């Protein structure tokens, strides 16, 4: 069925809504990356099998829906029962029968599956009231975790493609650009360039054709927002891109997805196929003159391809070596033609901005960073997961109110934002408001939205080494400062981790960083030293401890620590069985000892000991 007019789309939406009203209770099963790792696919199957056999009033197999990431990954697998919003967490396959018989059949709540806030001991029945969710505001993620990403009808029922209909009915391309500009939306990929201005430049470019590209190469380690959008609500990316195509006069677009996200590719492809089938992509969209089609371009595993010129070369089938951009890619981009390249989350915001208006959007957030931002919370924080919050929220609100604080109530040390181009912010920066400019002014950056929380058992010198190692592996190797400079910077950092560094090495590293920043060809090199610079800025004492005292305050750097078993040891033998070096001796139920000469400091014993009987000294 082709939807070849806006009236038909409205009619179709009404039909879908009428049909959906007959399904009173919905059981949403999260199939986001976290829940999936916990086996939520098995839970979904179990629901489907059991419900096929059972006859329950108002409940059928159709009531069960798989969704994308619902957000609260730490509590996964999640099962949510709507419209009441009953939130069951840490669900296992064996609980499914109970959920059907008690909750669905009799309306009883299963208390042990509810969420109990470890800080307040309060038990929550409804997900919206849980502090993790209560502080959030979802725009880009509005449908993620709420709809079945495979069903275009779900998207349409939730108002999908209404923004597209609106612009085709009543807005000129310039009006669209004006709304996007007025909304103040800035690129969510990290650089924070004004989306409206980018679109305007491309629209005005005389050369043809114009391309629309979506950057789904979420390469920053510690970030998974874009993955969740592509997997959980692919149509919003499509709609954002189609609106952009209308605004800038493009007929061809590509979504560049990193190859580590196979499910995103599958879900996006399904969305593209469906959109094409219904006439929302292709020639004469919704019966108008708008013609636009989309293809997926799969990355090959190269972080540098997140850089715009490298991404465009990769889409063109070449190796992803960046080119110097003295002519902006918006004028000479893909195949040297005018190109709009925006990130997944940026496109996901567009339909809402069009529908609710620029003023509505710009009233959220701060003056210079409007709207919301999606973040992935990970690391040593209680409530790991996917969140979306208004810009301007304080770091500590994210980490403590939403994130629930640090694992095991340990001490907060730093939060890493912006991935390998970003930096680490210490405890005295927790009052910072999260927006593009504030983070950049404080030696970090917004980046794409990864937030990795670190506690007192993280070594900041090691964190810097980790990122430099990452960048050395991911540098394309074209220009000298990045290829040779990051390599030497990493070597020096490693030397410090080994306790062999000197104050002179630190100075050399700082000087070298300056040249890498100002001399490198692309953003990877130009921001490459940031993790080192931000850690040495805020945690110089840790560097000095490594250099002057050969100590690792975080207890991480192997050369500088010793593991020792204390008197609490109950002789459970867990450490002994995991020790690959054969350095642990002891009999069952007797205190064990570590042979410090044999011990290779891998830390496995420490990780498996459940009773804190191993000290790091």
């Amino acid at each position, binding site marked *: 069925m082709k939807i070849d007019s806006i009236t038909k789309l409205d009619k179709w939406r009404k039909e879908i809504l009428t049909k959906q009203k007959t399904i009173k209770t919905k059981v949403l099963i999260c199939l986001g990356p976290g829940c999936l790792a916990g086996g939520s696919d098995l839970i979904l199957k179990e629901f489907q099998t059991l419900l096929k056999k059972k006859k329950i009033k108002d409940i059928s197999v159709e009531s069960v829906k798989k969704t994308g990431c619902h957000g609260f990954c730490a509590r996964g697998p999640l099962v949510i029962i709507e419209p009441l919003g009953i939130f069951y967490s840490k669900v296992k396959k064996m609980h499914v029968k109970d959920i059907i018989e008690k909750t669905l059949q009799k309306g009883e709540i299963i208390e042990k599956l509810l969420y109990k806030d470890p800080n307040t001991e309060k038990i929550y029945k409804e997900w919206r009231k849980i502090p993790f969710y209560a502080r959030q505001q979802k725009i880009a993620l509005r449908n993620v975790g709420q709809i079945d990403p495979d069903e275009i009808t779900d998207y349409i029922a939730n108002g999908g493609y209404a923004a597209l209909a609106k612009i085709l009915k009543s807005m000129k391309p310039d009006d669209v650009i004006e709304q996007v500009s007025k909304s103040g939306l800035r690129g969510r990929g990290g650089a924070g360039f004004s989306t409206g201005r980018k679109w305007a430049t491309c629209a005005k470019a005389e050369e043809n054709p114009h391309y629309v590209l979506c950057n789904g190469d979420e390469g920053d*380690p510690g970030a998974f927002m874009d993955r969740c959008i592509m997997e959980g609500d692919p149509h919003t990316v499509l709609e954002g891109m189609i609106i952009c195509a209308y605004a800038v006069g493009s007929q061809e677009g590509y979504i560049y997805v990193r190859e580590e996200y196979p499910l995103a590719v599958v879900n996006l492809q399904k969305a593209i196929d469906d959109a094409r089938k219904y006439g929302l992509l292709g020639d004469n969209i919704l019966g108008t003159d708008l013609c636009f089609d989309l293809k997926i371009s799969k990355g090959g595993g190269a972080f540098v391809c997140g850089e715009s010129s490298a991404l465009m070369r990769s889409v063109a089938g070449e190796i992803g070596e960046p080119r110097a951009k003295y002519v902006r890619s918006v004028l000479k981009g893909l195949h040297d033609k005018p190109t709009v390249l925006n990130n997944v989350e940026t496109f996901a915001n567009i339909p809402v901005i069009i529908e609710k208006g620029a003023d509505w959007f710009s009233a959220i957030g701060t003056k210079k960073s409007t709207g919301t931002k999606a973040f992935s919370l*990970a690391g040593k924080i209680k409530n790991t997961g996917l969140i979306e919050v208004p810009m301007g929220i304080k770091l500590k609100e994210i980490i403590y109110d939403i994130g629930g604080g640090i694992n095991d109530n340990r001490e907060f040390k730093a939060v890493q934002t912006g991935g390998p181009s970003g930096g680490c912010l210490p405890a005295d920066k927790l009052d910072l408001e999260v927006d593009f400019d504030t983070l950049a002014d404080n030696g970090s950056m917004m980046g794409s939205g990864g937030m990795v929380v*670190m506690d007192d058992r993280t070594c900041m010198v090691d964190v810097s080494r980790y990122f430099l190692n990452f960048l050395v592996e991911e540098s394309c190797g074209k220009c000298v400062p990045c290829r040779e400079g990051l390599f030497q910077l990493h070597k020096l950092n490693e030397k410090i981790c080994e306790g062999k560094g000197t104050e002179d090495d630190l100075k050399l590293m700082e000087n070298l960083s300056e040249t890498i920043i100002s001399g490198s060809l692309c953003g990877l090199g130009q921001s490459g030293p940031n993790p080192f610079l931000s850690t040495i800025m805020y945690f110089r004492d840790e560097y000095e401890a490594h250099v002057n005292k050969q100590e690792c305050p975080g207890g991480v750097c192997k050369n500088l620590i010793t593991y020792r078993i204390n008197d609490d040891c109950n002789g459970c033998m867990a450490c002994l069985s995991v020790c690959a070096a054969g350095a642990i001796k002891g009999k069952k139920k007797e205190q064990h000892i570590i042979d410090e000469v044999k011990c290779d400091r*891998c*830390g*496995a014993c420490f*990780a498996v000991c459940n009773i804190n009987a191993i000290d790091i000294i």
Partner: protein
Amino acid sequence: MIIDSNKIQKVIDDSPQDKKQLIMILQNIQQEFHYLPKESIGLVSEYLGMPQSTVYSAATFYKSFSLVPRGENIIKVCKGTACHIKGADLIIDQLDAGIGIKPGQTTKDMKYTIEVVNCVGACAMAPVMIVNDKYFGEVKCNRATKLAKTG
């Protein structure tokens, strides 16, 4: 391992004959054989009418391509930031002890290949390990070898 070049040609013939699709064609071949057999470089270059060096350059630039055969079971250890600070190295050490190979290596009997990947986007469940495309979250290092062997 001997791969029939007709089989490779078949995969190539099913792909669009367009230089822009070079990476996609290599991905298709890798999907089929789990690596890029040596012959595939020449065959792709012929099909697309581009120099072998260009094809080889792309095959070595992108990390997802392997030019050596990989094992029956692919074990990936995520080394994203969250996984790193939550002990991904411990998993690698344990796999080395339990299976006897380091990342990037394949066991002699071609049963296992261990690879380190940069963030698979499952950071909330760190540390993460992927055995033949199945994700395992919050992996305890003492369970790593067992997970790798039993999936």
